[in-house]
């Protein structure tokens, strides 16, 4: 069959699966086919990985070589350009977003030692006293989504710290996890350390059950089961938001537009809610005017900036938007189709701004995979609780008390102040918690010998 063939990689070795699934692109064309991993193949992969896992950290040199190969090499016949094209077509992501993601992953690998150092408390505690940070288990499972390639850096982190890794890639976009796997192997990673297991959702659930630590990305439906798990950390909808407590200047509008629309609104830290102390309609009108200026060619074009979806997802979004806009004001250009059918057969969700006077409107807190922002009112009497449940809370305010309250709120995972973009970070700044602490356990190592006070 023509097209791309994606096969599983079990403990470093490609295997051919008899279970085949077509891989369609956003235009409705057949992009290729995927050899699917049934549960039993995953069971075999886990058994083999567990037998051979040794907990050895992966050297940084190897990771840097893998990063270089991932970004530049021809891997199993896939050039960087072809990789970019495949992700664009499979996930509907603008090519520039894929390039950003590649740069993000390379940067993340480059900074990994610094990140880990910054995430762990000091461990030398005086002469003969030391805290060792060691992997809390041997197997790490990663269940990825298809919205953006960058989150694949989480399992690279686990690998670096000593885990053997089993990755179930996103259903629509298996290419990033596959390319990273190939890059790692080409860089010399021991085969038993990595398995790439495209499969149905149940396979991901099994991997998370079977591994010692795991991460799962996805909508509320995908992550709910693991919300209270001690061994699985979840990355669900970010619901990142801005508290806007300043006049709406051009500079503020620039900030809001980039926060919402960078990478086509596909990142979990793109904002989807503006809570304003001013008039929601006025803010929404001004933001909508900026959104109206966002234009983008088909997703395969090198200058595309907005994502597209296939016909099925388009239909789902159309219905969902129709439900969400009840009782809210839509600020997009009059008569604009919320899902534009492009000549290539894909559908582009129209960047959309809604406003409501009701902070409890059902659209408040909804995150969608394109530039989509709801503007709602916030009054000081509503308190900081109304700002919470957010991956990132951006405080555009001069109120220092509010800042302290937001930092103290456990449902806010990151606070950015002023016109700071939601993803601004440096090694050690938690994205959603501290991954090193999740992956490692601390252990006292004391080598003081027999000292006279010991039995005194």
């Amino acid at each position, binding site marked *: 069959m023509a097209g791309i063939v994606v096969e599983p990689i079990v403990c470093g070795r490609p295997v051919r699966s008899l279970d085949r699934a077509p891989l369609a692109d956003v235009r409705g064309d057949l992009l290729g086919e995927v050899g699917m991993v049934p*549960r039993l193949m995953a*069971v075999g992969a886990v058994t083999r990985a567990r037998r051979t896992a040794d907990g050895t950290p992966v050297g940084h040199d190897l990771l840097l070589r893998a990063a270089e190969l991932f970004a530049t090499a021809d891997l199993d016949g896939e050039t960087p350009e072809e990789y970019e094209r495949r992700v664009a077509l499979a996930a509907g992501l603008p090519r520039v977003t894929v390039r950003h993601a590649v740069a993000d992953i390379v940067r993340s690998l480059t900074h990994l030692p610094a990140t880990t150092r910054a995430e762990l408390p000091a461990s030398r505690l005086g002469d003969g006293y030391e805290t060792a940070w060691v992997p809390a288990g041997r197997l790490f499972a990663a269940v990825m*989504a298809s919205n953006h390639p960058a989150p694949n850096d989480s399992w690279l982190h686990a690998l670096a710290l000593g885990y053997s890794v089993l990755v179930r890639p996103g259903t629509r976009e298996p290419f990033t996890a596959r390319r990273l796997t190939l890059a790692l192997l080409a860089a010399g990673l021991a085969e038993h350390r990595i398995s790439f297991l495209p499969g149905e959702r149940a396979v991901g659930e099994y991997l998370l059950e079977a591994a010692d630590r795991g991460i799962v990305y996805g909508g509320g439906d995908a992550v709910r089961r693991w919300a209270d798990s001690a061994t699985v950390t979840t990355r669900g909808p*970010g619901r990142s938001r801005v508290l806007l407590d300043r006049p709406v200047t051009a500079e503020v509008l620039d900030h809001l537009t980039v926060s919402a629309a960078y990478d086509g609104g596909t990142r979990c830290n793109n904002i989807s809610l503006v809570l304003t102390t001013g008039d929601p309609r006025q803010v929404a009108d001004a933001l909508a005017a900026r959104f109206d200026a966002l234009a983008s060619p088909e997703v395969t074009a090198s200058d595309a900036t907005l994502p597209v979806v296939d016909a099925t997802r388009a239909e789902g979004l159309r219905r969902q938007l129709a439900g969400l806009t009840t009782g809210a004001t839509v600020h997009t250009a009059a008569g604009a189709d919320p899902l534009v059918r492009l000549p290539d057969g894909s559908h582009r969700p129209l960047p959309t701004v809604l406003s409501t006077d009701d902070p409890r409107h059902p659209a408040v807190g909804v995150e969608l*995979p394109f530039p989509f922002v709801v503007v709602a009112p916030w009054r000081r009497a509503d308190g900081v609780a109304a700002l919470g449940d957010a991956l990132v809370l951006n405080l555009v305010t001069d109120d220092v008390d509010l800042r302290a309250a937001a930092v103290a709120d456990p449902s806010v995972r990151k606070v950015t102040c002023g016109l700071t973009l939601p993803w601004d970070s440096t090694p050690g700044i938690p994205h959603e918690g501290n991954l090193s602490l999740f992956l490692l356990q601390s252990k006292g190592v004391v080598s003081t010998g027999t000292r006279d006070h010991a039995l005194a």
Partner: protein
Amino acid sequence: MDTMTTALAQDRAETFDERVRRLLHWHFDPQTGSAFWLRQRGLLDFDPLRDIDGAADLVRFPDLTEQLRHVPVGDLIPRGLTGTGFRVYESGGTSGAPKRIVDRDYRRRLLSWAMQRLRAHHIADPAHWLHLGPSGPHVFAYDCARYAALGNGMFHTVDFDPRWVKKLVAAGETDMVKRYVRHLLDQAAEVLRSQPVKVLSTTPPLIEAICADPELHAAVERSVETIIWAGTSFSPESLRQVEEVFFPDTTIVGIYGNTLMGVAPQRPRRPDDRHLCVFEPYAEAVWIDVVDEHGAVVDYGQRGRVRLSLVSEEMFLPNVIERDTAVRVEPAGDATVDGLAEVGTVAEVGDVRVIEGVY
């Protein structure tokens, strides 16, 4: 008992069409038919005795199996079959009331035939069986008990209520499901610890659970020579994993079937087979077509929906549209009927997922 063959010459087997005509007279005769079918007769827009000439005409009947969820089972017993000894079996019962059938002798004949088919895979005789599968109202355990008896073996069972598991799954009680599966595996391990079991009858999900438990897997590998699987399906790669990776020295035999129609064991593999597992139905009493959405039989090698008719003295179930799909396979060897491969369930249609978050 097949008592109605008097009209046939002794030296040739009855064709399926002849059987249909003969048994329609039986089921629609006020002296011999069941209350269920005699009531239906007036509701049909055709005359089953005049207008039905054979298997191909059975599609004129409506699929009445929904009524099996509530009809008193006594109404299903043909009046011509006097006496007692009928058993009641129930379908899975996942959604609403289960479908019920009655059986006295039909299944024994069917199972004798099926055991011959299983023997073609070289099952040890005598062989003790362990049935790690549903029992209670479900017919699977009865079938396997019969195979064990025909194979001169003892029959071990476990307590297994699949309806409870389905309720747990529907309620998202994942951890409870795991504990229940563990409970099932523990019961099996207990039997295997002391009993020389050579045949294990079970379901694909439980085979997967066994494979994920290295200790139990080793115990099964040590003693069991044949694994019979039924109840749900294996994907082609899953079956390959079972045969080649997890149980390379064990004979693996699948049985397709359900409460209504009976069983269709896997036939021995042939060199030119394109599927690892091809099921062959019981040609004497069951007619199966693999059909497209318009009801037309699909070509060989194509997938379609399973449509079946059961024509026996005890039950008449015409034109049943199953939830299963299968690939239609050409008859092989001395078989007279099509085989079925890669059985799967019809995917839920019109189910557009709500998009949540950026995923």
